[in-house]
């Protein structure tokens, strides 16, 4: 381990950095310590030898003691060089060296009552060692304490030299303390410097990374904008092109109809594209509100499964679903957004499954904290490159895929962002030409008292059959900020078959009211941004005469007066009572005309149920006859009849969820139209060419003659 900047790569936590710093210091010390101690011991040895040799009038005892000491020191010296401190923990090694060195020396010297010079030498060496052990002040303290105890203990044995010993010990203590303090201060400075260096490096690194991230993000944004511009221009080109073509050339009614269809289709596509883009910008600005409310898991699933069933049927894809129990009865979350995500993934699966199979599996994780939706298909699959770009906007396989399969290329990106915002995730695995598996994960937030189901509950018989209520017609604007109330009233109005626009605050309500002509406005009186009363006044001031009905929980006489003065024609009390509500709506809206009623019946309500199935059976019969006629007219080369029948099938098959049939019939019709067009143009060209040729020949003849 060396103190290079590579080691700045690990953690920033203070404790770890401190430990690293201490380790760094120890490592720096390692080479020096044995040398220092060796020098100390060598010098002592020399001193002893010198003493032994010079001061000859010594007792026998003194000499032997001295020799023992010399021997010990020589051993220790050897240890220094031959046993590397690597094998011992550095601090312990130093500690014991110092003690072993100091202890016998002082005891022996004391006993021998030696020349003070030698003792001073030992002391001096000890002091140097102490200074050098500034690398580990803790150790210096330990060693110093030991030394002091030893010396103080020794001097107790020699009362005569008490003063000398005592002052020497005191000097020792002071020196040790000074050395320790100095070393502590030095170490602190070093430590702080180290920390600053580290911080600086970290800040630098973060700044560089932020800059890189930002430039990458900017690049992504530019690319996104460029893509978006392209995606928007493409349908616009079709719209403008076909609109222009209708204007300029003389076209048959048929051609005009087709052009209008194309214009409308592209317009719808543009609308869904813009809605998606708005969703994305909301998500990125953090303005997307994810609701959290409790809803029935299976009611919600049944709705989705019904919609997917219908879709799968039109694309001739087999769809099944499987539930892994136990599953909760109710969960908390945003049912609308979650539905958006699931429908997106399921829709993709069906789109890309050609004539295959799609399955949905719902299960809870083992710890019952996560709910997992697994969607598997056996479609075209995706390679690694596609998988990497899957959740990024506007990258849908390749652009030819977008054209063939439809869609905006933004669905998965939005779904991914939505799941992230909900604390969940979307993952995908895929094999080209084999299929794909999408996993949608949602953390389960369960209501306080949660019931767990072991089997699929029976489907709730939904709302009352819309046919039971008399249908009304008209446009209604509903302004209500509380989402549950809004949904409830919207639901009640939908059952009556009216056209509903919703607003969630007064400002939106005013906006809508000044743009559209409404037959009735339902205005909640307590709303944020702009409350109902102010909105009503403003709408009336702006010349809009639509009847406004106040929805409010305040129904004291004074309040009713206020609302009427502001321009409300009626006041409806909250909580909403069904009968009174229906009564009021009926008094402002008119019943639907028969034909309009039939048209307005939503395809969903109509396409389930016995009535529809009977009609479908009848249609299959009709279809058989039509197909017979198709074959007949083709074999008899009756082009116009062929075209007419194909046109009929095109128009009717779609109503019975046979859109593939409808498309195929449309192809036949289009082919005949193309043939007709080609015929007329070519005939014109032929005739022109003949004329020109004959004219040239005439001129040529004349010139020959003349």
């Amino acid at each position, binding site marked *: 381990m060396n103190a290079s900047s590579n080691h700045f790569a690990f953690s920033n936590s203070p404790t770890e950095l401190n430990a690293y710093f201490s380790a760094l210091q120890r490592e720096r010390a390692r080479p020096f310590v044995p040398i220092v101690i060796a020098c100390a011991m060598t010098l002592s040895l020399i001193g002893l030898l010198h003493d032994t040799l010079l001061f000859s009038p010594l007792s026998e005892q003194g000499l032997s003691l001295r020799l023992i000491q010399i021997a010990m020191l020589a051993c220790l010296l050897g240890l220094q060089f031959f046993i590397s401190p690597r094998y011992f923990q550095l601090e312990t090694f130093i500690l014991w060296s110092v003690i072993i060195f100091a202890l016998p020396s002082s005891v022996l010297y004391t006993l021998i009552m030696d020349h003070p010079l030698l003792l001073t030498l030992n002391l001096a060496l000890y002091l140097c060692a102490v200074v050098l052990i500034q690398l580990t002040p803790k150790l210096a303290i330990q060693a110093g304490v030991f030394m002091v105890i030893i010396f103080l203990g020794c001097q107790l044995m020699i009362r005569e030299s008490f003063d000398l010993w005592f002052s020497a010990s005191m000097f020792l203590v002071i020196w040790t303390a000074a050395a320790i303090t100095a070393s502590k201060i030095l170490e602190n400075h070093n430590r702080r410097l180290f920390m600053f260096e580290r911080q600086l490096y970290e800040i630098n690194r973060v700044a560089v990374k932020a800059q890189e991230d930002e430039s990458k993000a900017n690049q992504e944004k530019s690319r996104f904008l460029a893509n978006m511009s392209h995606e928007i221009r493409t349908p616009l080109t079709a719209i403008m092109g076909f609109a222009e073509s209708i204007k300029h050339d003389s076209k048959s009614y048929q051609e005009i109809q087709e052009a209008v269809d194309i214009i409308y289709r592209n317009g719808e596509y543009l609308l869904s594209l813009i809605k998606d883009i708005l969703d994305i910008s909301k998500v990125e600005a953090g303005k997307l509100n994810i609701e959290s409310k409790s809803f029935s898991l299976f009611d919600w699933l049944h709705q989705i499964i019904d919609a997917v069933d219908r879709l799968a049927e039109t694309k001739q894809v087999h769809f099944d679903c499987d539930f892994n129990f136990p599953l909760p009865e109710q969960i908390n979350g945003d049912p609308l957004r979650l539905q958006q995500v699931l429908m997106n993934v399921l829709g993709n699966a069906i789109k890309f499954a050609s004539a295959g199979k799609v399955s949905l599996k719902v299960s809870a994780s083992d710890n019952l904290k996560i709910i997992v939706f697994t969607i598997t298909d056996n479609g075209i699959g995706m390679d690694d490159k596609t998988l990497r770009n899957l959740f990024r906007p506007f990258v849908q396989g390749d652009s030819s895929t977008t054209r063939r399969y439809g869609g905006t290329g933004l669905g998965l990106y939005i779904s991914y962002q939505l799941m992230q915002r909900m604390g969940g995730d979307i993952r995908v695995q895929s094999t080209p030409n084999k299929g794909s598996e999408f996993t949608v994960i949602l953390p389960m937030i369960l209501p306080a008292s949660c019931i767990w189901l072991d089997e699929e509950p029976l489907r709730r018989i939904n709302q009352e059959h819309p046919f039971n209520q008399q249908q009304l017609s008209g446009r209604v604007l509903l302004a209500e900020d509380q989402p549950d109330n809004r949904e409830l009233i919207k639901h009640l109005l939908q059952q009556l078959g009216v056209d509903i626009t919703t607003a969630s605050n007064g400002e939106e309500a005013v906006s809508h009211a000044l743009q559209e002509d409404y037959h009735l406005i339902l205005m909640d009186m307590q709303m944020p941004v702009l409350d109902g009363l102010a909105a009503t006044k403003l709408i009336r*001031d702006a010349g809009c005469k639509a009847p406004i009905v106040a929805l409010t929980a305040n129904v004291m006489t004074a309040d009713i007066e206020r609302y009427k003065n502001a321009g409300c024609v009626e006041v409806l009390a909250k909580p909403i009572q069904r009968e009174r509500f229906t009564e009021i709506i009926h008094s402002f809206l008119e019943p639907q005309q028969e034909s309009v009623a039939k048209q307005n019946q939503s395809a969903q309500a109509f396409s389930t149920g016995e009535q529809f199935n009977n009609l479908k059976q009848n249609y299959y019969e009709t279809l058989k006859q039509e197909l017979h006629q198709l074959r007949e007219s083709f074999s008899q080369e009756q082009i116009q009849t062929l075209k007419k029948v194909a046109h009929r099938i095109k128009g009717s098959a779609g109503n019975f969820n046979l859109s593939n049939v409808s498309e195929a019939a449309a192809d036949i019709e289009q082919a005949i139209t193309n043939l007709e067009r080609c015929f007329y143009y070519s005939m014109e060209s032929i005739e022109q060419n003949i004329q020109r040729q004959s004219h040239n020949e005439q001129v040529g003849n004349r010139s020959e003659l003349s």
Partner: protein
Amino acid sequence: MNSANLLKPERDVLIVDDAFDVRAMIKAIIRESYNFRIDEARDQKQALNFINKFNYQKIFLDIDLGKDDGLSILGQVKELQPKAQVIMISAHNTLDNVRSAVVKGADGFIVKPFSPQKIISFLES
């Protein structure tokens, strides 16, 4: 002033908007249901020209007239055409615009993009 007004010939509708398409659209919407005499003005100068020459029943006045501002001539228009209903049109639906238009005497306010019914509803009254 009033007597001068009585002498001016009668027309039905004046449309003031700097965008040709918008004027054409409003005109088409009106013509579909009514046989009104309709005039069109592109900017403040033209609008004031028309107002000084004729009497109108309805005036549709766009707020955003390029370098001119519909709100600023609203006062003049109301003064010169006391019998006319002046309806402001705007692409921005800030409530402040609505409020200041109402304060200055506008009889109505429409927000773009509007549905044809909105125009018709103002003609019926």
